[in-house]
């Protein structure tokens, strides 16, 4: 009968609990009304059936709403929302909620970072907002939208059962002499049914009343997220009750958008006036661009903090020349705005380099190497750093091939930012050059570049620290003299189809120069193209426009970690004996936040979204999952993760996009994984010495009462990355216990603690990545909640 040809096969078994519940409910109540109520109406009062009728109707209504209402399912994210490869992006992202660090996990099925309190239901294969649990009795997830109806269903069902039992008892007591009669028998049967289900239903009702008062979901309660910690989502007892009962009905996300009418986006596009005050720059030009109005080149650094780009210079008349994706020019001038400028990261403190305009007056301003341009969107430096990282990530993928430079560039945010600026500048120049080239007839920019190059060469030494001159040099010489250098490069993001002609962005050049001190120009031709052109880069990835803006500290940390990792990786490849170091590096990367007793951010914490990890690096990436060349690395990671934190999975990449992952990611089991860890540990041998494991146990245990009990790295199947061998101990016991208890779908009959242990064991922490080879074992928790454990 089940049709297994499609992915979503019709499984009749999943309808058994809900059918049973419905039949019992409706059947028993009908029998009560038919057989018991007439006498009660006559003997006691007509209000009895009226009251029972109202309550029964209420029960039915809430039951229907809980069953059929969308719990708050998130639609799958579009492809372009996640441009980063899954196996390079971190598994977790930190976000701060009311001062508490909360971890958002990447959902491999739905392709987004799950919002706080969201969880993926493996039964429904959906991410559900404010996920409570999946209730088999209503065959639906309980989430934000239908939690109130579920709660009211429980309350009303309890009241209804109490009423039915009480009035049935009254009937029986008055008909003791006729126990064999039909009515009496039926009433007795109804009473038995009511009495049988009374304990589990009332127990569940009480459990949820406690949850409501505390402002927790079932998922959070059974996974122990707030045990000993602080719940950032609570609004106080009264506020929580009010929220559950009185909040407006949340909207459906899976809905057909009713488009009023599509808005046409047609060029020409307006451009904003570029700000004049973003940077404090003492521009020191090389004398080429006499035509550039200098009045706008001086900007007050001091005024930076106060100003947002409120007042901007008037749009230059050459705005129509902008045809390409633009680098934001730091200095505003009329010529600048005519440039095809890429939006530079505004918060990038940088040695500002003015981009040449190839419109009417292609000029290049060179900044005094001593000058420092600091662009701040806010007064905080951490967003700057964060944005630096994102700027890197977003713009193209420079970090793919030059991780060290990226790391270093981010690490020294202020000093390295000129590279970013420069890259954008160069990109704009390249684009302008392209533009000029394509126009075919405008030789002026080329000549100008040449002249600039010539003029800039004497400045090379001066600008060497900032590589400005190098850039210029490459701009003037390399691009022009080696037109074939980067034929594949320079598909700027805006114009995928436009070939770069004879010009390669010295972005890398500048960066490399900055880092290596100077023989960049030779490297640039070969190395540039992967940088600039995402399409032609070795990484077959589109640059990601996705930006996660809220994780400054973690980005900083993660970038450091990545840098270290890459260095370690080099060491690893060159010196096999430095594994320990590598392990250290990876361990730091994997860290997350289990500050003991709170949601603290661990040292070496997560790098929230550092996608630019070469596939070889093992952040628990998909490569690791496949046990590829990074196996070694992951082992190291694994061996050290217990030392570092429970959230070892944090540093690891997201699970691959497979549907099976969802089954595992949602509720996997530390227990099981620690099982594997324990079992495989002897096999690991070389890399995971017990020495690593044992010290971690004391470290781990105190951290358990944190927001997320960290699961072992579940995506290292063979390797068992368990960051929680210490947790494996108690969890094993619990696991065994859970195994013994019969929990499948039985709502009652089990002590709550046992259920809780069972479900705790089964759902501890975050299910990290899927265990591909794992079997799935279903463990039921309280009220028939089912958790899948990867065995």
């Amino acid at each position, binding site marked *: 009968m089940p049709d297994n040809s499609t992915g979503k096969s019709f499984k009749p078994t999943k309808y058994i609990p809900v059918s049973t519940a419905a039949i019992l409910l409706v059947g028993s109540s009908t029998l009560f009304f038919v057989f018991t109520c007439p006498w009660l109406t006559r003997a006691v009062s007509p209000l009895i059936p009226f009251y029972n009728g109202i309550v029964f109707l209420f029960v039915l209504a809430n039951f*229907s709403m809980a069953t059929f209402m969308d719990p708050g399912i*998130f*639609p799958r994210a579009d492809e372009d*929302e996640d441009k980063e490869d899954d196996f390079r992006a971190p598994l977790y992202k930190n*976000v701060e*909620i*009311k001062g508490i660090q909360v971890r958002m996990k990447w959902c491999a099925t739905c392709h*987004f970072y799950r*919002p706080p*309190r969201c969880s993926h239901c493996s039964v429904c294969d959906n991410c559900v907002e*404010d996920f409570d649990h999946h209730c088999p009795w209503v065959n639906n997830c309980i989430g934000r939208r239908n939690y*109130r109806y579920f709660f*009211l269903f429980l309350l009303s069902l309890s009241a209804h059962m109490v009423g039915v039992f009480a009035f049935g008892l009254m009937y029986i007591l008055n008909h003791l002499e006729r126990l064999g009669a039909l009515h009496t028998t039926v009433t007795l049967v109804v009473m038995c049914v009511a009495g049988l289900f009374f304990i589990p239903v009332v127990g569940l009702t009480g459990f949820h009343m406690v949850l409501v008062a505390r402002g927790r979901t079932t998922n959070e309660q059974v996974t122990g997220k707030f045990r000993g910690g602080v719940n*950032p*989502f609570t*609004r106080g007892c009264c506020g929580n009750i009010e929220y559950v*009962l*009185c*909040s*407006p*009905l949340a909207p459906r*996300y899976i809905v057909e*958008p*009713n488009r009023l009418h599509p*808005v046409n*986006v*047609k*060029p*020409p*596009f307006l*451009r*904003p006036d570029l700000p004049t005050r973003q940077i404090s720059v003492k521009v020191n030009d090389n004398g080429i661009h006499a035509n550039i109005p200098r009045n706008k080149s001086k900007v007050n650094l001091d005024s930076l903090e106060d100003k*947002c*780009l*409120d007042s*901007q210079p008037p749009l230059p008349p050459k705005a129509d020349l902008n*045809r*390409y*994706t*633009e*680098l*934001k020019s730091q200095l505003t001038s009329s010529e600048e705005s005519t440039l095809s*400028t890429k*939006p*530079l*990261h505004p*918060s990038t403190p940088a040695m500002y380099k003015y981009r040449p305009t190839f419109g009417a007056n292609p000029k290049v301003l060179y900044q005094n190497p001593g000058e420092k341009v600091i662009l701040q*969107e806010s007064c905080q430096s951490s*967003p700057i750093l964060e*944005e630096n990282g994102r*700027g890197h990530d977003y713009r193209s993928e420079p970090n793919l091939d030059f991780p060290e430079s990226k790391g270093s560039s981010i690490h020294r945010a202020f000093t390295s930012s000129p590279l970013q600026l420069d890259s954008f500048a160069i990109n704009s120049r390249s684009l302008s050059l392209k533009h000029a080239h394509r126009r075919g007839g405008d030789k002026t920019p080329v000549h100008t570049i040449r002249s600039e190059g010539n003029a800039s060469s004497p400045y090379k030494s001066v600008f060497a620290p900032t590589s400005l001159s190098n850039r210029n040099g490459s701009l003037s010489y390399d691009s022009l003299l080696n037109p074939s250098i980067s034929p594949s490069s320079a598909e700027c*993001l*805006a*114009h995928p189809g*436009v070939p770069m002609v004879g010009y390669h962005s010295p972005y890398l050049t500048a960066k490399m120069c900055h880092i290596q001190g100077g023989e960049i120009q030779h490297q640039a031709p070969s190395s540039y193209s992967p940088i600039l052109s995402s399409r032609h880069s070795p990484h077959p990835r589109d640059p990601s*426009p*996705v*930006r996660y*803006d*809220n994780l400054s500290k973690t980005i900083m940390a993660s970038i450091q970690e990545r840098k270290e990792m890459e260095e370690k990786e080099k060491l690893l490849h060159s010196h096999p004996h430095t594994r320990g170091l590598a392990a250290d590096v990876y361990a730091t990367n994997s860290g997350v936040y289990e500050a003991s007793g709170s949601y603290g951010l661990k040292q070496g914490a997560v790098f929230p979204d550092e996608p630019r990890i070469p596939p070889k690096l093992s952040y628990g990436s998909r490569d690791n999952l496949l046990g590829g060349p990074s196996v070694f690395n992951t082992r190291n990671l694994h061996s050290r993760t217990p030392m570092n934190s429970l959230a070892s999975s944090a540093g690891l990449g997201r699970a691959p996009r497979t549907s099976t992952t969802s089954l595992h990611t949602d509720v996997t089991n530390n227990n099981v994984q620690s099982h594997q860890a324990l079992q495989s540990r002897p096999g690991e041998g070389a890399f995971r010495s017990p020495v690593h494991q044992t010290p971690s146990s004391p470290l781990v245990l105190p951290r358990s009462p944190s927001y997320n009990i960290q699961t072992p790295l579940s995506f290292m199947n063979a390797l068992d990355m368990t960051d929680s061998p210490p947790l494996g101990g108690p969890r094993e016991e619990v696991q065994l216990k859970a195994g013994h208890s019969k929990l499948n779908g039985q709502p009652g009959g089990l002590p709550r603690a046992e259920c809780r242990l069972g479900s705790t064991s089964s759902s501890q922490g975050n299910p990290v990545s899927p265990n591909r080879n794992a079997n799935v074992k279903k463990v039921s928790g309280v009220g028939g909640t089912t958790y899948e454990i990867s065995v």
Partner: protein
Amino acid sequence: MGRGWVRCRWGWMTDHIQKFHNLQELRRSASLATKVFIQRDYSDGTVCQFQTKFPAELDSRIERQLFEDTVKTLNGFYAEAEKIGGQSYLEGCLACTTAYIIFLCMETRYEKVLKKISRYIQEQNEKIYAPRGLLITDPIERGMRVIEISIFEDRGSSGSTSSSSSTSSSSGR
């Protein structure tokens, strides 16, 4: 015969010119360059708020103030929609008493605000964002996780001109 021939030629020319203009129009169309995603601001819990931080990619496309105004207005709408107060309480009671049948007839407050938001976004797109080559997608389509802003680039008149000459129709031949 001669006049007919001239008319045919004239028709051919006008058609050609028309197609040329159409293609010019096509060539001036915008192409989607990239997308910026404004993430949710969870600093205050799970209430629906979006970050007002100005993304770098829009820096040269739109004034900061306009963008922030848009996001702040949206945040205000969402806050109004999720406000727990008199109206939501009444709605809940009404729904309970009618066994939730009222949901079939009436629009909830949240849905009303969502429609308002949708209209607002449409208006913002028409007035402010589309002229700048941007397009805001209603966050409800993304599960209210992100505001998606599509950045368009002008492809310019860089297309081949051969296509214009290849199509020509003669009328009345």
